[in-house]
């Protein structure tokens, strides 16, 4: 599919004012398709176009006069809705988003109870991006993330118990307690990190995509068709590595999708203060790949764009840059007092909560009942509680683990005083040798 169709489909569903930075604050949620009814034509009547569900008085409302050109026609939202998701898929998406939200809320609680420590960056508000993209992947596909990686790990299938244990620094964590909040890795679930430096994950993800191409073209293994997703934020898009990788991925037509989670803030740096050209999606074109902007608070829209971009990559047509307009409800990290973001902005995005919106969608379109959703919420509550109990009860890493996993070839520790390799000394691995 040509670049223009991806861009045009996504752009068609957006309010035009999104493309310039300053007016982003006024844009509101008029881009959300299927979430509210819109009547198409009336005779000579003043029509109020609501600025979104539950709009607050602070934004005001826009109104216009629509001239009738034909008999009144009411659009049926169900026609569009039915095409987008089945009941089964809908429940899966809902469950994944609830898991992400619930888990992160629990992290905050645990942090303030000192069970979790260090730097913890929560994902509240951005669930639609993780769910929309990762649930469109196959098991063999790869994802690479940043320090805001808990929910990416969960969406990809890393058990909540393992993630929670890792956060508590226990031996049962996905990285045996050696990685921590910012360094989630899972070989089994194809999660390649977990990086603290912004931009670091982008080349690593590009390398994973390179591996797919190499496996197919050099090793002649056509069963390898893994696509890689690289997740990163708006601040990263000013970093050199980002551009270096856009160039090489397009040059070598690598099967990768670059997913920008533009939540407008890099710690306390407003995106518009840091970026000469704030429309990140435009930068794809400079490197020869489609650049797409999507409403990151709408899981169905994200999913639509994700499916197309992933299919494009899997076909061998190369990379895509997808900018997801999203927002984080909490500060940059649990240590961030979050004093710079204005309440008006926070409220504007609070009413666009992706979970609330999707819940409403499922209910209004008869895809699920309140009871169904309550069951899911209860199930997730139990999973998260269980994860905490498991993590609490798990042991701390033993002393012998301190020196483990530095080298895959443990002879890297060199030769001991007895002339043999250090790793051959049983006391070394038991943690009692002197090094």
């Amino acid at each position, binding site marked *: 599919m040509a670049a223009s169709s991806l861009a045009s489909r996504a752009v068609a569903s957006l309010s035009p004012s999104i493309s310039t930075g300053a007016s982003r604050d006024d844009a509101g949620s008029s881009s959300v398709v299927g979430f509210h009814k819109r009547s198409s034509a009336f005779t000579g009547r003043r029509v109020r176009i609501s600025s979104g569900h539950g709009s607050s008085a602070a934004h005001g409302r826009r109104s216009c006069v629509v001239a009738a050109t034909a008999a009144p026609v009411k659009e049926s939202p169900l026609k569009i809705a039915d095409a987008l998701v089945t009941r089964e898929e809908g429940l899966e998406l809902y469950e994944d988003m609830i898991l992400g939200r619930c888990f992160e809320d629990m992290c905050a609680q645990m942090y303030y109870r000192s069970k979790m420590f260090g730097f913890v960056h929560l994902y509240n508000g951005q669930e639609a991006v993780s769910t929309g993209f990762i649930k469109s992947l196959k098991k063999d596909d790869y994802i690479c993330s940043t320090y805001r990686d808990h929910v990416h790990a969960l969406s990809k299938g890393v058990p909540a118990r393992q993630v929670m244990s890792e956060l508590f620094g226990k031996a049962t964590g996905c990285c045996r307690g050696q990685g921590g909040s910012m360094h989630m890795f899972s070989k089994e679930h194809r999660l390649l*990190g977990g990086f603290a430096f912004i931009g670091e994950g982008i*080349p690593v993800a590009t390398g994973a995509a390179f591996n797919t191409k190499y496996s197919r073209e*050099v090793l002649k293994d056509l069963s390898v068709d893994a696509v890689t997703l690289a997740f990163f934020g708006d601040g990263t898009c000013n970093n050199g590595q980002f551009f270096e990788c856009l160039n090489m991925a397009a040059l070598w037509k690598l099967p990768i999708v670059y997913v920008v989670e533009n939540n407008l803030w890099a710690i306390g740096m407003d995106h518009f203060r840091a970026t000469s050209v704030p429309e990140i999606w435009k930068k794809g074109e400079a490197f020869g790949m489609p650049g797409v902007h999507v409403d990151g608070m709408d899981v169905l829209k994200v999913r639509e764009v994700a499916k197309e971009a992933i299919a494009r990559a899997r076909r061998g047509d190369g990379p895509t840059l997808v900018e997801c307009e999203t927002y984080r409800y909490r500060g940059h990290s649990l240590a961030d007092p979050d004093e710079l973001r204005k309440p008006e902005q926070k409220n504007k995005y609070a009413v666009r909560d992706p979970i609330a919106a999707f819940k409403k969608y499922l209910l209004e379109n008869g895809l699920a009942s309140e009871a169904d959703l309550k069951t899911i919420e209860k199930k997730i509550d139990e999973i998260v509680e269980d994860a905490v109990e498991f993590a609490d009860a798990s042991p701390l890493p033993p002393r012998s683990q301190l020196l483990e996993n530095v080298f895959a*070839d443990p002879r890297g520790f*060199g030769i001991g005083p007895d002339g043999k390799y250090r790793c051959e000394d049983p006391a070394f691995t038991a943690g009692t040798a002197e090094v």
Partner: protein
Amino acid sequence: MTVRDALNSAIDEEMAADPKVFVMGEEVGEYQGAYKVTKGLLQKYGPDRVLDTPITEAGFTGIGVGAAFQGLKPIVEFMTFNFAMQAIDHIINSAAKTYYMSGGQISVPIVFRGPNGAAAGVGAQHSQCFAAWYGSCPGLKVVTPYSAEDARGLLKAAIRDPDPVVFLENELLYGENFPVSSQVRDPNFTLPIGKAKVEREGTDVTITAFSKMVGFALKAADELAKDGIKAEVINLRSIRPLDRETINASVRKTYRLVAVEEGWPQHGVCAEVCASVQEESFDYLDAPIERISGADIPMPYAANLERLALPQIEDIVRAAKRACYRSK
């Protein structure tokens, strides 16, 4: 065999034996290698396995690391290790630390190679020695070949190694010819990473060196022999892991040590050698340990100043005599 041919043949043979091995870097393909180390490889293995990259160290190093996460075996060439500073984040944070951070799940079988240290008249930004910096980082293996035998054996070992290896060559050694045995020419010849070599046996003073300085130390040993001082020369070969065993065994034999390196003195490789000997063989020392290193300045351009900024054979001789209490 020249060092250049040794490196070229090592890469060639490993690429032939294992299709997962590939080369990436600037000018490695059509240009035949900035220093001709990868000469002929593009013609033999094609552009899918010998990748000319754009000038994007951070980007392509990270791509190499990401590929290694999946079990491919990239050989990333830096035109010089000075340029690797633009990629050092990936060498340390994505390559060296990942096996540990992932709790043993993801190993990184990558080799970073290229010329290190001073060349001739290339100025301050092209002359730094990075052995000490990389040598201090856990999770990395750091090797510094001297001879053609070292180059072949250590590079093959590095390519086969499941961990990230920083392979520090020296531009001025590329053209030097060394005699090699048929054993060295064997396609399965490897040297163990972490083992130093006693290049020359002696009884009066131990001289440790690596890379180009090994040649200087050997010449210094010849000079010292004329004065009746029999120096033992140790080619470290491996900075991390450092072969403290061999160094200390030698000092316990000679009771005196001169540690030589081309890089800067503070926190250098010699500082670590000194610390190790002082800790493990204190009672054997008959004299304070002598350190010979490059001058504590950015490398000057003028030829005479450059010569003054780097250790010369006479400096090593003087230090050895001092250690033997044969001069001031």
